[in-house]
């Protein structure tokens, strides 16, 4: 049976632990998530060996919130809960990467920040009802950001360059 331990086992090289990844979406259109899954088309075989997707709601159901080597943050912060969650992710992560325009500069998720007084008055009851922040914030307004990948959506080439650089750094 394949599950039996062989007495003639060849000593294997010690396994290098996989890089623990968290992928989190806040207030945004999740376009970077889609781009990431498209980049995966060409890189899934190496990612399967290299990355442990511990928390990525788009990819899996059993998501684990412990510690991350790289946490990717997509989207802007629209509520006090978002702020708390982002701070929590930061505290668990060696590297934090802001991906896409909403995370990096806040827009367009933060477009209500630029509304006229009249427009603000017309949406105010919704903000109050759902406990939203008065102003939407970008990621670096709340926590330290190690790497930024701008774009709406992010550029797949830039994403790969930055990810590869981080992998190199983490692997020393």
């Amino acid at each position, binding site marked *: 049976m394949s599950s039996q331990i062989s007495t003639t086992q060849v000593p294997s090289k010690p396994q290098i632990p996989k890089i623990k990844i968290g992928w989190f979406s806040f207030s945004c259109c999740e376009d970077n998530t889609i781009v990431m899954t498209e980049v995966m088309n060409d890189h899934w075989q190496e990612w399967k060996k290299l990355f442990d997707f511990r928390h990525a709601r788009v990819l899996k159901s059993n998501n684990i919130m412990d510690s991350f080597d790289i946490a990717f943050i997509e989207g802007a912060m629209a509520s006090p809960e978002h702020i708390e969650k982002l701070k929590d992710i930061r505290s668990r992560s060696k590297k934090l990467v802001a991906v896409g325009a909403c995370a990096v500069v806040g827009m367009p998720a933060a477009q209500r920040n630029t509304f006229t007084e009249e*427009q603000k008055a017309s949406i105010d009851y919704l903000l109050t009802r759902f406990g939203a922040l008065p102003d939407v914030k970008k990621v670096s307004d709340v926590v330290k950001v190690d790497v930024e990948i701008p774009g*709406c959506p992010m550029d797949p080439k830039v994403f790969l360059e930055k990810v590869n650089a981080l992998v190199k750094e983490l692997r020393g």
Partner: protein
Amino acid sequence: MHRIDLRLDHITKVEGDASMDVTVNDGKVTDVKFAIVEYKRFFTEAMKGKNIAAIPAHLSRICGTCSNAHVMAAIAAAENALGIEVTPQTKLLRKLTMHGLVSRDHALHLYLFVMPDLFGKDAFLDFDDEDPIQHQLLHDGFDVKSAGNHLSQLVAGRSVHATFPVIGGFLKFPTPEGAAECVEEMKAVRPAVLRLIKIFMDAPLHLDRKTKYMALIPDDTFGYIGGKIVTDNGEVYEQKDFRSHLEHTVLPYSQASAYKYKGESYMVGALARINLAKDKLHPNTKESAAEALKLFPSTDIFHNNLAQAIEILHSIDESIEILTNTVFTPEPVIKVPMRAGTGMGVIEAPRGTLYHKVVMDENGIVLDGEVIVPTGQNQVNIERDVSAIVEPLIAEDESKEKIGMEIEKLIRAYDPCMSCGAHFLKVKWKGK
């Protein structure tokens, strides 16, 4: 009274963030709330004051995965308001844009979101590379997605927030070399799509509940742009009636707190389209998917997944035909003087009928807008199906965990999009 409260927070493997609350009293489901976890970003409010030319790119940002559907619907609404009639070549390029979107998006849903349920896996990437079937599916999934992605890049500039399609035409055109590459790639993945259809034909998930279906059906071939809105009741709405249909049927239905409109709920999406228009599918699709097509029309919501797989095949077959038989030549974008008016754009997004309405002044400045998304229209049906699936499980005394998993599978069958839904689902908000 024996009461059970089921709550699913942050439903996984869907687009965007959703939750579900189900209340059961004495074995009967008394309340179902398919709710929103996302915060509004106020896209229709933010339309106001913008120039009409900026609206397709603006509304595209409602949703990453459906972005090119929003681009197409916004362009259609603007052209309707301005009275622009586009060239036959533009119509072909728009068909191809939709085929790129549908094949990429359905493949993401079927392989990455649904397939793990069929194999008892947590994630598609957990599939065992050593197992011949799972190894094949891993390659199939990423190859099919890739073919759709490359078609979108060729025709629309990119698969997310397309840059080539604009009001009045296209800014760039496929090269013969690019078209030939896409044709080769699509021919190469066709066997994978046939395997996909077989898997969803044989899938053990079923929930049969009679409902109504509605879709925009093009006049010529099976597709996603142009034509008439039809229902399986035999109702037909022509282009000139789209506005009154939106205002008198779709909007009241989508915003109703009661669970029905005109006495019945309805469903939009791949299942509705295949049920209503399978006869218009590409001849090669009809031939290769003949066995699967015998199952339609179907009232089994899990056949929505099978319908999606068949749509991928149709998109591939029609794209191969168009790209093989067309030489694209650069042509100028059609421009007309601005005028005040109201425009309606209706298209079939991957998840169903998408309505955009725009009101503009004589300078092309937007005064008002309306967007009605497929998931908003399917919300009532989703909630009714959840009731139907939960009650037998309660009667069998299944665990909350098991019931929760079954609810998630059902929700995934609809392929809801909460990034869109966050803005337009009726107000059963999660709140604080």
